[in-house]
């Protein structure tokens, strides 16, 4: 088992190298990096400086090694638009994205799993059909459109939630983690906590819809498979109440495939975060990356793509490793 864990962790290395190479290529292989890095501030003098700083006159492999070296020292260059170090900006935006993604995945699990269980337990009932129709619509829904509709109904028409941003202007919360919910709780400011939650509600709901639909579908099919097995029939024959059969006997075994799905959906969530953040003016990495693409701020694009890819790789790693612990039948030689 230990050797499996070691091999799985080591398998991450070539992927990380590949990611670093692709992000490197983003800036250096195509086009003139001087133009890309300087944008409107292009002058021949500035270009000479850039060529020295990024060692653009060295052979490609040397440049790549240099790029990786700088990256490992936490230097991703400076943003063209703001002139600030990319890493400093990233540190500001990353907690916002994590807070949103975390809230969405929690919502998706809380909605998707019970829905899937009920649908499987009452197979072919109206509840089942309704849940699956909803799930089918959910996976087909463009998240950016859902976001707009939520804003229209719950912010403009009903006025229950704010439509944009993470906080109203004027309100500040002492910064600790950068996740405003945690920061507000830590400061003991329940009023601010409520406001933060209300800002979080719509984007988190929009982002959670697709994963919730996927999770509901997989929970249902996984439950149906388990409910058809012999030991379930034995339990029923013994006279165990149906509720206990579902909750105690079936659920545990049905949850395993869900770990994979939740892991994969977290990846889809990162894609969705790009769109959701743009719609709700959520000041996170996704919106930052999109703005950088439209503004040709290549160092920022590089950092954004890098962060999302690395996060995704580590989520997959955690999912694979969690199997070892979750399913004692799986023994990797």
């Amino acid at each position, binding site marked *: 088992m230990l050797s499996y864990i070691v091999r799985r962790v080591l398998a991450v290395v*070539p*992927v990380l190298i*590949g*990611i670093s190479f*692709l*992000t490197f290529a*983003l800036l250096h292989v*195509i*086009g003139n990096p001087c133009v890309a890095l300087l944008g409107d501030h292009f002058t021949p003098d500035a270009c000479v400086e850039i060529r020295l700083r990024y060692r653009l006159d060295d052979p490609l492999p040397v440049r790549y090694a240099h790029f990786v070296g700088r990256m490992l020292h936490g230097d991703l260059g400076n943003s063209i638009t703001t002139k600030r170090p990319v890493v400093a900006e990233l540190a500001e935006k990353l907690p916002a994205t994590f807070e949103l993604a975390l809230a969405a995945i929690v919502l998706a699990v809380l909605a998707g799993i019970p829905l899937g269980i009920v649908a499987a337990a009452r197979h072919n009932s109206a509840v089942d059909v309704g849940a699956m129709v909803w799930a*089918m*619509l959910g*996976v*087909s*829904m*463009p*998240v*950016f*459109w*859902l976001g*707009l*509709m939520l*804003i*229209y109904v719950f912010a*403009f028409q009903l006025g229950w939630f704010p439509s944009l941003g993470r906080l109203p202007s004027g309100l500040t919360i002492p910064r600790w983690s950068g996740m405003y919910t945690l920061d507000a709780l830590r400061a003991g400011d329940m009023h601010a906590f409520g406001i933060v939650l209300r800002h979080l509600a719509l984007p988190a709901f929009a982002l959670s819809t697709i994963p919730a639909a996927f999770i509901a*579908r997989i929970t*249902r*099919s*996984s*439950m*149906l*498979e388990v409910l*058809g097995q012999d030991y379930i029939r034995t339990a029923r024959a013994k006279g165990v109440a149906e509720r206990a059969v579902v909750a105690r006997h079936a659920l545990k075994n049905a949850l395993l495939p869900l770990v994979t799905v939740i892991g994969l959906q977290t*990846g*889809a969530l*990162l*894609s*969705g975060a*790009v*769109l959701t953040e*743009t719609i709700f003016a959520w000041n996170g990495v996704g919106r930052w*990356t*999109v703005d950088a*693409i*439209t503004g040709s701020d*290549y160092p920022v*694009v590089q950092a*954004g*793509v890098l962060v*999302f*890819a690395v996060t*995704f*790789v580590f989520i*997959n790693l955690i999912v694979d490793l969690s199997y070892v612990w979750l399913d004692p039948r799986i023994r990797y030689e």
Partner: protein
Amino acid sequence: MSALDLALPPRPSPARPPLRDAVRRVRGSRLAMAGLGIIGFLTFCAVAAPWLSIQHPDADGIWSAFMRDAKQPPSLRHWMGTDKLGRDLASRIVYGARTSLLIGVTSVSLAIAVGAALGAVAGFFGRWVDAVIMRLMDIMLAFPSLLLALGIVALTGPRLLNAMLAVGIVSIPTYARIVRASVLAEVGKDYVTASRALGASPMRLLLHHVVPNALAPLIVAASLGIGTAILEAAGLGFLGLGAQPPLAEWGLMLADNRQSMTSFWWLVTCPGVAIMLTVLGFNLLGDGLRDVLDPRLRGGRR
């Protein structure tokens, strides 16, 4: 017929021609037929767009008396209303079906062509060729798909063609994996070894033994893939990184009309419903086909 053929046992003739059998089973699947119905309707809209629409999708009113038509609520003449430039929304939605179907079919065809070739090469040659190709696929899969597409568009510039390429490239690994798995599954079998011993070329092995076995999962993946491609391309369009104005593309239309949403709700409702319906059609078809064609992938869904 050569003498060699006599050495082989006669081919078992299936009770029913497989294609007709498959068609019969697809007909029996309500999911697949519902999906096909939606796709058929959209294809009809796309083909008949010039006759279904009351004005050219790009005909705006800036330069003409049309301007007083701007932001009209749904009516008999404009039954989805008009946008801020006085363009008839229904006409643009109908033309948008062309754009979306084009995006879906083109990008998935590209992905299948490249992915199937890579998967076949990886499966046949094995060893380091396999290792290199599949590690490359793993790296591509390491990026959340929209992010990788964003990166590609960042490199190549925001244009519809680039968005289509990006969306296609992102899904190459899916098809490479399917074809590689089919190659590996078939190559070890006795009948393929026999065929190879008789001197069949790799190309012949591929076309006669691998392709028929890979077809079912490929068709299922392609159907679901077209839906995903349309969704992703609409997302890129919405972000301003795909189709550019004044092209009638649903994602772009949502972005264009976003500012007017508060008082003109139909302007964002209709394009969104169009996207959802299209993606739903391909998802239903894919799910239905999966149940019919590929029982191995069925899982517990029944």
